[in-house]
Each structure stands twice: as C-alpha cells, then as structure tokens.
C-alpha cells in the first residue's frame, strides 16, 4: 500500500517490450530527480542500460512534435510532459494503435506510411 509513498530516489518503470506476438514486461530502475519527465527516464535507460529499447520522439522536451505518445499507468500521455515519480510506473505502447516494437506504435496517417503511400 505505502509503496508509492516511499521516499526513495528511484523511479521503478515496468516497461512493455517486444514485437507483436511476443510481448513481455521488463523492470528498470532509474535515478529520480525532481522535474524529470517520463521521456527523460526512457532516454536514460537507452544510454545507460539498454540501447535496444525502442521509443519514438523528436522535439524531446517542448511538447510540439506530438510523437512520444505512450500509455503511463493506463493513461495516454506524452512522455515528455508526463512527470516522472519516485514510485513504480507502468509504461506501455498505445493500446489502440498497431504495435511496431516496444513503445513504438504506428501513429503516422495512413497515406504517409511507406506501404500505403505507394
């Protein structure tokens, strides 16, 4: 019960990984600093423990590109504006979009995809 209120300096992310048909969950601990976004934590994981984690983002912190949409604890958010917290957080790809890999889904308009644009 009091797990979320523990005063620790770690955000514990449970991240949904994999390609369609072979999804799995993975746990990652990320050093917590007030004022970090969920995207900051995902980028930290890529640089410090697992570069294979797939995420999609462009503007990084400005909330303009709208590419970093993911599900955090079941809610659709932009990872760059979702506040990281020193507790367990569940990060998953968008449930209503086709999964490409890990947290990346097909969010391009159909006529801007390689296959459909032909």
């Amino acid at each position, binding site marked *: 019960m009091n797990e979320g209120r523990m005063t620790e300096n770690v955000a514990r992310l449970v991240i949904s990984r994999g390609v369609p048909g072979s999804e799995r969950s993975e746990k990652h601990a990320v050093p917590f600093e007030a004022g970090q976004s969920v995207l900051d934590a995902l980028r930290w994981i890529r640089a410090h423990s697992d*570069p294979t984690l797939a995420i999609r983002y462009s*503007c*990084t912190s400005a909330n303009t590109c709208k590419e970093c949409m993911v599900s955090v604890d079941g809610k659709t958010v932009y990872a760059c*504006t979702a506040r990281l917290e020193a507790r367990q957080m569940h990060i998953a790809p968008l449930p209503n979009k086709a999964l490409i890999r890990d947290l990346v889904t097909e969010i*391009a308009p159909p006529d801007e995809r390689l296959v459909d644009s032909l």
Partner: protein
Amino acid sequence: MTHLETDVLVIGAGGAGMYAAIEAARGGAKVILADRSLIGRGGATIMAQMTVAVALGEQEPDDWEHHYADTLAAGRGLCDPALARLLCEEGPEVIREMDDWGVGWARQDGSKRGPMKQAFAPGHDRPRCVYVDFLNTGPAVSKTLRTRLIRTPEIRRVGDLLVSELVMRDGECVGAVALHLATGQPVTISAASTVVATGGLTRLYQRNSASANMSGDGYALCLAAGAELVDMEFVQFFPIGHLAPRLIGMDPIMWDPFRYKLGGRLLNGNREEFVHNYGASDDGKYVVTRDLATYAIVKEVEAGRGSPHGGAWLSFEHCSEADLRAAGGPVIDRLAKNGIDLTRQAIEVAPIAHYHMGGVRADVSMATRVPGLFAAGEAVGGANGANRLSGNAITEALVFGRKAGRSAAARAQASGGKRAAQSAFGKAVIRLCEGLPAPSSNPAAMIEELQALMQKEVGPFRTGAGLERALERIRSMHQVLPSMKPPAGKPYDTELADWLDLTTMLTVARCVASSALARTESRGAHQREDHPGMADEWQKNQVIG
C-alpha cells in the same frame, strides 16, 4: 525490397523541405518528401518560438536593403552576399504567401487582414519580425505547410525514412538509400533531383534547443557525395536557454518572446546587471546580440559570478502580473503548473546550441557542386556568416526551400524522365544492411559522450588545446564504429538508428572542430580564448571537401 522513383526527392520535412516540395510540385514535378520522423513534426521550424525577420514595412517603413545591411553586419564580414541578399529580397514574397495560406501572422489591430505586427529584435535597425503569438510561430508555420502538402497530389509523403547514403552515378546524384524505420528494411529511391533539407547540427551538443533529429545528417550525406561544406566552425549559441528550475514540457528557448515583449533583466549571481560591462547595453530592452550575450554570461560564470546552476538570472520580477499575462498568455498557466510565478522569482538561463551558420555550400539556385544535388534551409551554409540575426532562420528556410524546389523541378524536367536503375543502389544497400549480430558498445551512450565532449571543448569558447583533445577523442570513437554496426532488418531498431546517427555526428563533429582549430581568431559565434579579437587575414570562409 521497395524501390521508388520520382522526379524530385526532398529529404527532410521541416519548413525548408515542405516549401521545396510544394514549389517543385508547382513546377510540374512529381515529388517524394521523405523524413526520418513523422511528416512536418520533426526538425527545427516547428520549434520556432516567435520571430520571423522580413522587410514588409507594415510596422514602420522598411526595405529589403536595410534587412540585408543588418544581416551582413551581424555576420561579421563572412556572409555570402548573394545568399544573404536572396534571403532578404525574397523574404517578403514567401511571408505574404504564408499569409495567403492562413498562417495567422499577428495583426496590429487584432483583425485577420490589417497591417501585421512587426516586433523589434536584437541586431535589427527597426521593428521587422512578424510572428504568430504565444510561442506559436513554428507550430503555425509547420501546420500551414502541412495543409498545403496534403492538398498537393503530386507530393507523396513518406515518414520513418532515415536516409543512409546519397547514390552517385557518372558524377551525378541519382537518389538515395534509406532505412525504413518501421520495418527495418532498406528502401531505394531513384530521383532526377535530390534536395537535402535536413536542418543543422544542434544535437551534437549536450544542451541544445532543437529536435533529436538535427544530427547534421545532410552535411555528412552531401560531403560523402562530393559536395562542399562551408563555415562549419560557426555554431550559434542561444544565450538565454532555460537552465533552472527544471521544467516539464517547455521548450528551453521559451524566454525569447518574453524578452521581446517585456525586456527583462539579465543579472549575474550577485544580482547585478552585467551585459554593459562587455560593451553592450541591456537596460531593460532586448537589444544585445546573441554572440555578445553568450560571451558575457560565460565570462561571468568563469569569474565566479554565475547563478547557482552555472548561468545567469533572468528576472521579470519588476513586471506586473497583467503585463506578464498579456505577454505570455497561456504560457503563464503552464509555468504555474511547474510552480513558477515570474512576479516573485527570477529563473536561470545559460547558452545552448541553437543554430548552425555553416553547412552545405550552394549557389543562389541552391545547387551544390554535385549535379542533381540541391540543399535548402539551415542545411545551407553561408547566408548568415559568423553570426545569425534573430528572425532570419524561418525566412531562410522558406526562401531557400522555395528556390531549391524550383531548381530541382527544372532540372528534373530537363532530364527528360531518365532515372537510374535499381542496380545503381546495390553497394549502398549492402553497407546499410551488413552488421554484427552482437554489437560491442552502446551507441546511445557514445552519442551522450560526444555531446558532452562537444559542449566542453567545441562550445561557445574554444582553445587550441581543447579542440585538439576533442579531435583526438572523435578519432578514437570513429575507430570503433565498424565493430559495433548492427545489421538492418529489425522493426524500429533504435540501436541501428543510433549507430547511423553516431557515424554522422562524428563526421560532422570533426568538421566543426577542425575548422575551429584552424581559425586562429575570434569572430561572431566562434570565440577562441587563445586568439581573442578578429584578425583581418581571417576575413575569409573555410571550405571542406
């Protein structure tokens, strides 16, 4: 394997690339507009906060020649006069066309068609900058161009395409090979003309204001294809990038519009104004140029007079709540969500990499020296010399984009529909696909290492010894690249994308550092601690390639 054919291939869907595609289609060409990100979402244009410099004369009488004179003065003697003239002379046409397309430039009377508001910006001799209010200029410009694209059936838009190589045959550029990120498969694109509109290189730096795909892709692609690069040492640092407290969901250059509207006070760690000690005035008005403000802040920090996180204070505490609300609109609420009340607290700012004056060498038709290869926007070097005036980047993107699109379409028409066969792309496809199943290093970590190195040794202040250290480390990082190349084939393989980016970034970093080492003087955005002051013999441009 997917093979595409087109008259004109445009690489990069920021402001320059989108305008190039629209103009090429108007010129009768079939166009493929490719971007590594989603179309119209990546790049720098969408992140522009406010000013677009253009001599419209709607606020006060103006003429492009005045804008041109200011651009040349800011460039500290190094602007390519023909490119600078093109930017200033044709700026009004593209800005008015954007207005016709409904971008929504702010009006003096708040109407939709009245005279436009033109704000004063540092380095300009009069109010010259149009804008869309409340941090909206870039998003509005991008959205307007996207809407035009969608209404143009001759343009095929393809996202998730990361171009790995331009392909040459008989001395001409005949298209490109790209990694399709969503599937991990190679794609070959045969084109009569190719336009590189990939933006600048700000991702090379740890603290930067642009999107994650500004890795200097176009520079590396064009250099490998045989084009020249110019002025690579001139990286503009934006002096007042947000430093502290940490903010979520706010662009680090967000303070610029506040400065334009309210002035604000730049203070050192002792809460004293200091910019005047460096030969500029900043008494409540935003007039100090970017290179000088960057210099002043870094020097104060060095002298032990920085703010707690190593920058300067920016204060609007003297402004009323009503004035702040009028200037910031909804941004005030976003700040409140981050716990910031500007009437009660100053925030900390410090220089961040913002724009690159250098780039691909092109003539006024945007042609590089490689037949069939054009450049547009920030990817083009030379128009802004050693320092860019605020407001010139979007104008440059639109003017140069339009010009490149026109030239590329004309060349495609003259070629009579000749296209290179898919076999011409074979070697580049193999280079993209080959790799080791178990790479030895983490390319994302190496990118962070390179960014820290560039910030420290090739940042706003440089020394010969520091530049030598940077070049040595860049060389050693380059050597391990072959041992860590992942093969292509996996859907959305960010490790492969990072490897391709790291390869590009190391090439471009070497160009910046070696040009900076050679230039033994201080001019505009290039400041050498060991060579202060401008030297007459260095009033010249360095060319690589």
